[in-house]
Structure formats: C-alpha cells, structure tokens
C-alpha cells in the first residue's frame, strides 16, 4: 500500500501508552538514547507523552567514543534544544585499555564498550527499567521479544521463559533481583519510523541523508572515514561519492549505502523499494549466526 496514506496514529498511541505505563509504575526508570533515528522517534514520543511537563525520568546515552563526529554535535544540540536531563556514560575501564574497533574484534569491542558499559551504568544508578528503541521488525530474535521484557540480575534475556503478555495490561512487577527492558517501538517498521519522522518533522543526524563523503570499500562494504583515527588497509583507496546511512552505530562498524536521497521524501522512496534490510549495514550483527540473540543473552539491548 502507498506509505503516504499510512495511518500510524495507533502506533503512536500505543507507544505513548507504554511510556506512560512506565512512568506510572516503575521505581527508577531510564530512557536509553543512541542518537539514531529510532531513538529520535522514541524521544519525540516521550516528550509528547508528558507534554507540557518534562519527561519524568533521565535520558541516558551509553557512549563508546566511536560514534560519528556529526552524531556528537547533534546530541549536544538536542540536549540544549529540548532541555533534556541527559546522562552520558562511557566504560572507563575499556577506554583506559584503549578498546577500539580497529585493534579489537567487533565482538570484543561491542561487548566491552556497549554491552558491559550498559550493564555497568544500569547498576551504577540502580535503574530497574530501561526503555529502548528496538523494533521487532529489525531482527529475528527481536521479533520474539515482549514489549515489557524481563532481565535477570546479570541483565540477561531468557527467551524460553518470557512472561505472557496479553492485551494492554502489562505486568511491571519485579522480583528484587530482576530488571526490565521496555520497547515502546516494538510494532513499528522502518517505514513507519520514516513516515512518522516525515510527518512530525523530526530533526535527524544529517548522516541519514546523501552527501558526498569520503569512504573506502572494505569487504564490499562502504566504510566512511570520519576522522584521522581511521587506518587504511593495504590497497584501500579513498573514494568521494554520495552515500548515506540507513542505520547509525559506531563509525567503522556501520556501513553506508550509495545513495542520492538527500531529503526525507527521497529516503522514503528508496526504503520503499529497497531489496536489503536496514541492519544489512550492521557488521556486528553478523559476528556469528544468531549473534543478536547471543548478545541479548549477554545483556545487549
């Protein structure tokens, strides 16, 4: 069907309902924010849910230090523009040991700078519930997850013992050693996200739109050169061409696509006709088969 006619108000209503339920029942919740498009929608929905009052819980960015430089600029802008209570956390131990995506395997790097960092900061502030922007549509193990999803004291997901979840009556009760992750965007697709961004005029990091940028082809993937920390491999040549990103993560681990789509409308058309999934450019999903499931078992969100 024509995406221009899509009615997403039921998705918006459901997400707002979920976020309000968290505010009503959780003891010490936090909203995870990763600067990307889904996070931007999530933040927008959270602001809508409580307007004219502020979001009644903190917003947290787990930083790896390896986001694209444009992402950091954008983050500081958002913080000022909306006057958000934003916490930024970096795994100090990993930073001290210079854990980075060039010298370490993507698996080790993701584990230390993302998964372990997230677990550490949740424990540090004693957050019992973390709201995230993950969607079921993104990946096959996420397709299996509840909206209100239980984690054990090690923040691990147990896919074989999920709580029943019926109607809109959510169980937010936790045992003292349990935590919870909540996914208000569970039922949104990539197309829903973009249509909504378009309709609500949500400001995004410019990397989502095509522009001439420097990059190399590495294992057939387009890897953008963001700063002078980038190390060229033997035989690699820097190319300047129009590229954009469908998904944003850490810069050497997120591949771009060749594209001329420099407006939301053009991006929407491109996604509508795409033959590849959005996480195709996420190198960390493909470390091992079922690797998202494995990461989630380890506490990744």
């Amino acid at each position: 069907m024509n995406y221009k006619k899509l009615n997403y108000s039921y998705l918006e209503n459901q997400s707002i309902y979920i976020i309000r339920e968290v505010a009503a029942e959780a003891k010490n919740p936090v909203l995870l924010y990763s600067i990307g498009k889904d996070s931007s929608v999530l933040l927008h929905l959270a602001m809508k849910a409580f307007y004219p009052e502020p979001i009644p819980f903190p917003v947290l960015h787990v930083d790896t230090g390896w986001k694209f430089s444009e992402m950091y600029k954008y983050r500081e802008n958002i913080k000022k523009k909306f006057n958000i209570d934003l916490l930024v956390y970096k795994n100090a131990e990993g930073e001290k040991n210079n854990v980075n995506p060039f010298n370490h395997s993507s698996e080790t790097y993701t584990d230390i700078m993302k998964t372990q960092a997230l677990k550490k900061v949740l424990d540090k502030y004693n957050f019992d519930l973390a709201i995230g922007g993950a969607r079921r549509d993104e990946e096959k193990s996420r397709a299996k997850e509840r909206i209100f999803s239980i984690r054990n004291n090690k923040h691990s997901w147990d896919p074989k013992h999920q709580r029943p979840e019926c109607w809109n009556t959510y169980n937010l009760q936790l045992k003292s050693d349990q935590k919870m992750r909540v996914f208000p965007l569970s039922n949104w697709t990539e197309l829903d996200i973009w249509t909504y961004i378009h309709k609500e005029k949500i400001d995004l990091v410019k990397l989502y739109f095509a522009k001439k940028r420097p990059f190399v082809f590495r294992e057939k993937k387009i890897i953008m050169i963001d700063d002078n920390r980038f190390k060229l491999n033997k035989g690699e040549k820097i190319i300047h061409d129009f590229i954009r990103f469908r998904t944003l993560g850490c810069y050497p681990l997120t591949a771009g696509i060749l594209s001329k789509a420099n407006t939301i409308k053009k991006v929407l058309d491109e996604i509508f006709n795409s033959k590849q999934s959005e996480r195709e450019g996420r190198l960390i999903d493909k470390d091992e088969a079922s690797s998202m499931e494995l990461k989630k078992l380890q506490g990744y969100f």
Partner: protein
Amino acid sequence: MSSNNQNTLRFITCGSVDDGKSTLMGRMLFENNSIYKDQLEELKSASLKYSKSKEIDYSMLLDGLSSEREQKITIDVAYRYFQTKKRKFIVADTPGHQQYTKNMITGASNSQLAIILVSAKKGILEQTIRHSYICSLLGIKNIILAINKMDIVNFDKNIFDKISKKYMKITKNYDFNKISIIPISALHGYNVVKKSKKINWYYGPSLLSILEKASINIKNDNNFALPIQLVQTNKQNKRRYLGLVTGGSIKVKDDITIFPSLTKNSIKNMFFHKKKLIQAEEGDVISIELNKEVDISRGDIFVKNTNSFILSDRFKADLIWMDINPAFIGRLYYIKIGHIMVGAQILKINFKDNNNQLKKDNIIKLEMNELAYAEIQLEKQTSTSLFKKNKMLGSFILIDRINKNTIGIGMIRDHSNLASNIFYSQSFVTKKHRNIANGHKSKVIWFTGLSGAGKSTIARKLEKRLFKTGMKTYILDGDNLRTGINKNLSFTENDRIENIRRVSEISKLMIDAGILVLVCLISPYENERKTAKKLFKKGDFIEVYVKASLKTLEKRDVKGLYKKARLGEIKDFTGISSPYEVPVNPNMIIDTEKNNIEESVNMLFNKIKPII
C-alpha cells in the same frame, strides 16, 4: 491499541504442531517479496545448517531463536510485519505445542483474525479445537480455517469437505462471526498468495486476498470509558488526567461520573500533545482537565453511562492458567485490571468442555494451560466491565505475589447472582478501646518451622512470661486445632492452605478481641504465610522462624514421627515427603541448634515486650 484502523490487520496463525504455521507465513512473506536479500541469504545458510537441505526452509524466517531452529519447533510467538497494496499486516506466528499455549495466547490477545491451520493428512486434532476455543474466548470473531498439505492427499476434495464439515460442527457454539475455509499447500505456496490450478475445485480467493479484504471490527461497545493511567500535577498545582479511551467517545463540556467514588464532574479541556481536542474516541491517548478539582488517582475510571460498569468485589470469569505452579483455591494473588492492582483469590473453579458447557464442579486446583470458569474474590470493591463490552476493563491478569510472574489471565463474564457485599459489621467497642483497657497491644506472633523444631515448647514458655506481666494471651496450636475446628482437614497441599486460612482468621478475631495470640503452626508455604500476614495491620503480625536442621530433628525425634515418615507410615510429612519453604524475611529467627530453650525464650521476650 483497540483503535479501528482499517489500514492494519493484526492476525495470528495457530493450530497443532507441525501443521505448517511457520512455513505458511514464511512462504507468504517470500511470495509477497517481503523478505530482504540479506535475510534470504541468512535463511539459505540456516536451512543448510539446521535442515541439511539446499531447499529454503521458510519456517526459519519465523523461528528466529537458535533453540527453535535446532529443535525445528516454534517455542514463542514471533511477530512479522508486511504490507501489500491493500493494507499492512502484523502477524503473530504462534507455537502449536500444548506446553506453549500461554505463548499462543499472548499472540492471540491482540489479534483481530486467526488463521487456524489443519493438516489435510492428520485432520482436526485436539490442539486445533483448543486453539479455536481459545480464540473464541478471547473474542476473535473472524476465522480462516486453512486446510494445509493438500498436495500430500492428492488435492482430494472429499478430504477437504470432511474436515470442513467436522470443524463447523465442533465450533457451532463458538462465538465466531465468520469462518472462511481454504485448501492450501504452504510448502509449495498453492492458494497462499496466488490461486493455484492444482486445486481447481476451489473457487474462493487466495489466503492473502481473504486477509486483504477481512473486515476489522473489534470495537468495544459505545459506552465511553477512560481509565486514568497517570495523574500529572503542574507547578501551579493544577491537575491533568492522562489515559487511553477504551470505549465510546467524549466531547469537551460532557458530564462524566468517576468510578469508584461515583462523583460527578465535567470535561473542561482535552489535549493531545500541543493540540486542544474537541472530541476523542476509542483508541486515543489523551490528557484531560476537569471543571472541578477533586482527588482522583490512577485506576479511577471516567464514564458517561454508569450502567456499563459494576463496582463489586466479586465476579465470574473464564480463567486460563499459565504458570508451572498450579492455581489453588483460596491462595492470594495480585490481580491487575486496567490500571488497578489489588489482592485477589479464586473462590471456585469449574471446568468447561470445548463446547463451552460446564463439565465438572468445584475443582480445587488448576494446572498450567488449563481453562476454567472461576469465581474471583477481590480484596476491595473495584470497577470492572464485562469482556464482551470492554476488552480492557473486562479482562485481567493474575500475578504471583512472590516471583512476580504473570500466572494467569481472565475474561470477566458475569457480575450477577453473587453472594457478594457482605459488609463486615463494625461494632462500637473497637480493638483500640480494648487495647487501652488491657494496657497492651494485641498482635499475633506466628511461629513457623519444621515439626519438632520447638515451636510449641518455646511459645508456652513465652506465654507464661508474658502472662505473668498481666497480658491477655492465648496459644493457637496447629496440632490441637486439628482435633477440633480443623478436624476435617488432611495434610495435602490444599488442606494445609485451608488450615492456615482458618487459623489466620481465628487469630484475627482474637486480635480484635484484644488478645496477644501465639500461633504454632508448621505453615510450610511462604505464600500462605504472606497471605496470613496480609490479613493484619502492618506490625500486628510477627513472623518467628524456629530453625533446626532436618538432620538434628531426625536425631531428636521426640514423638517418633520422623522415623514413621521415613518408613512411609505417615504421608505428606513436612521435610520428608512434603516441602518446607524457609521464610524469606521473618521478623525473628530462633536457631534452636545455637540457643537452648531458655535463651530462646529470653531473646523473644526482650524483643517482643517493648513493642506490645
């Protein structure tokens, strides 16, 4: 949300194991070009790894967990999203195994249509009927019976007709509006997206076109209801009430009644984000300002017509049990209805057969995945609706008080004809007056522990000390009570629960009479001790765990009971053939292996005297 959006159809695939649910959805997504290239590559390598086949195994598109792929079964519900030129679809692919029924129900609860798969070879199985019945209970009105694997039976029309007829007969009492029946082969994609020439005797549309045309009608009745989800207070101390409209519609200036206080009010302003609204309807999440500022909290309900809601503490409901531990009559649970959470217990369990007819009366427990028609007692008067009128306020979930899991769900069917509303009559002379006259507070000291641990011995000595200081005391001893009021109870789990309930109620009366009660009861289950505790005001219930290891007790064995239990002469003996759950958070622990009786009594006396 329950909004009536014709753009998006939410449906489930269900039916028995191996009838091809995941394969069907995989095939449908594939033929509808809803699978991305990189996902297809992953699917190919997974097919090779788990199915040892170069052919694509479409079921793996849905079975995304590695344990599902290894065992080649669906364990939990998977959600997939796709669209055609006509509309968007959210499909919940649910497991067929009986043990995973609770996951099927999770998927079904938010669905507007169900595809029930039957294998043409195996015909209608128990799970086919069970899933159909559950769909009916959950209010799914639109059913597609897809008779699959037609290729295996040589596209035999007779087989198709036989199964169709049988299904219509079985489900004739179910609450369905429409049943479409279609012959398919999920594996080959016949009649899935496109019609197949192989089944030339079938004149209806393909499965996908049925889905594209299915009407979506899942609205609640027209009675406006807004359960308050959140109350916002701004700096000027003005309040806004936030919630989801679960039925009917509302306009600015409309008069409303607020449950449970039944006070009248009217709508001053309505908002969605920055937008001022004139009207809101079912499915909308809104904020409201009222003309009169009153005390309203989460869980209160705004209505226009008070007749569609009942304020009561008891109702009858279809109950589906979802926990590995069975449900027991009399055990206290939490119930969540809309935004209200209170204590609740099951008073009565009746079974129904798959024809919705009552089968057997007064069952005492309910096992995982069993369905029942139950009477539920709530701790306090709560406003609810009937499920058929309002899905959100006519349904509930049950939550375990200790492990906090969702252990059951229910649909409210009946508020009438219940011996409810027996109000506890409050006499003029109260506990407070009696406590003042006696010069001490009345409380219950609850001794729990294994048989022979020393509960009675310690309690008797303690009572003597307390009595000497002029207190009114009484001992309720489990063994003694079993010769009188509890004579009719055995030592099964059910009777132990009832035993504890009676002792708790007696203690409550005695506390009200101003007496310091000492209860000596093995009381082996944490849940029942918690339930007992809940009966009393905070601080009135002192739990004392009299601790001794089983090894020590078997050595002591004053009454010779442990020996008999070991020989099998006594059945259901706590610690030997029946469990004892050690108290999680008792007020006091008396370790009889470390302290002798005198020391133990001294310790207790010194701790208890100052708070009485």
